[in-house]
């Protein structure tokens, strides 16, 4: 989910950059040197997850999975997502430098929220785990698309219809991300519960 260069106004770009900077600073502070490799390699996994294409009818969309990254990393998800987006910009030209801040906010804020909202529900029961995962996936994309719409709307009120169109277009993605995140969380709890932060203690 990227907003392209050349669209947003100066105040929106500046706000995005400032928020992303603050969040990254906070996240970096939370990562000590024993965990930094973990964060870096999960950032790579997040990058690669976006290369996974799943079908919806005749079309296909790629996974985003910021919900999972949030669940697994908490605040540390912010620098991880920044890293992945920067590398995507370098390799695929999905975006440039000026929108990097806004894009980080769009992807990372819902991820961090998902961590605090849904992590406590994981592992209570298989059904609840799936539902929590489903909601984490769905909610992350919903909130990301709303943030993206807001960025456009703050730039120019005339982008209202465009924003609505974008949010609507993401509805099928939300459902798919929900299902995939649900199964993925179920998988993680079964196969490697140590990866879920709470379970470590």
């Amino acid at each position, binding site marked *: 989910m990227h907003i392209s260069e050349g669209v947003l106004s100066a105040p929106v770009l500046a706000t995005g950059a400032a928020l992303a900077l603050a969040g990254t600073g906070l996240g970096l502070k939370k990562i000590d040197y024993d965990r930094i490799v973990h964060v870096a390699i999960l950032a790579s996994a997040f990058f690669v997850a976006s290369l996974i294409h799943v079908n919806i009818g005749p079309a296909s969309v790629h996974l985003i999975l910021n919900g999972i990254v949030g669940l697994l990393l908490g605040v540390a998800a912010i620098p991880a997502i920044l890293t992945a987006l920067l590398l995507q910009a370098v390799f695929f030209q999905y975006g440039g430098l000026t929108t990097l801040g806004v894009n980080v906010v769009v992807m990372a804020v819902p991820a961090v929220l998902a961590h605090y909202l849904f992590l406590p529900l994981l592992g209570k029961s298989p059904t609840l785990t799936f539902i929590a995962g489903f909601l984490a996936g769905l909610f992350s994309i919903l909130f990301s698309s709303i943030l993206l719409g807001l960025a456009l709307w703050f730039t120019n009120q005339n982008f209202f219809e465009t924003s609505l169109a974008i949010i609507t277009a993401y509805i099928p993605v939300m459902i798919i991300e929900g299902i995939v995140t649900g199964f993925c969380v*179920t*998988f993680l709890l*079964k*196969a*490697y519960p140590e990866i879920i932060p709470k379970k470590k203690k």
Partner: protein
Amino acid sequence: MGFIVTANSSVIKLEDISFSYPGSDTKILDHLNLEIKQGDRIGMIAPNGSGKTTLLHTIMGLCKPDSGTIKVFEKVLNHEKDFLLVRSKIGLLFQDSDDQLFCPTVLDDVAFGPLNLGFSRTDAIDIARKTLEKLGILYFEKSVIHKLSGGQKRLVALASVLAMEPEVLLLDEPTAGLDNKVKEKLIHILNSLDISYFVISHEFDFANAVTDKIYSMENGRILRDDEIHIHRHEHIHKHGKHPHIHK
């Protein structure tokens, strides 16, 4: 699936296959010919990077050859669709079992293939159990994959390939990183199968124990050893008082 397979009929036949990876000029396969017949047990020993894995991937339709024809069960395969049909009849054991196992538990993983073939859940689980039983590893059906040892993973990977009841097996270095006990188990299992297979290995003794002929590869072509004759030779070993570990 309607393939009629009689003894000595050709199962896989590559004719004049050339292949190079996109963006490179090196011909990894260079007018290569290979035939695997019903009942064949063929080994292949060749250096790293000589194109063995590429060869198997070409048979499975993963690498599209630049020229030449691939026939499986006497049928020429051209399009992705032709390969789809045939892939369930050829079992490929990957070089690294970790590449092959992605379900949470052993049973899930072995049942994955049968489910894709259209079996019902209960039938798929049934098939999976039977296959694990046959390999003598039913006792860890509930185990989580990444907590298994290398040898155990190998056996599970083999089970998940066999569960699809393939008519040919392609094995890519099945013994890499395995200890001698598991190796012997594998030799025993392979020798008790009654399907054709093609085994890549870096270990002569293993390949020798499970196959009837051994090929090699050089410059993108197969080197064939049709005659097999007995040869006797001596080594000198330093070894201690413990049971001598020797393949």
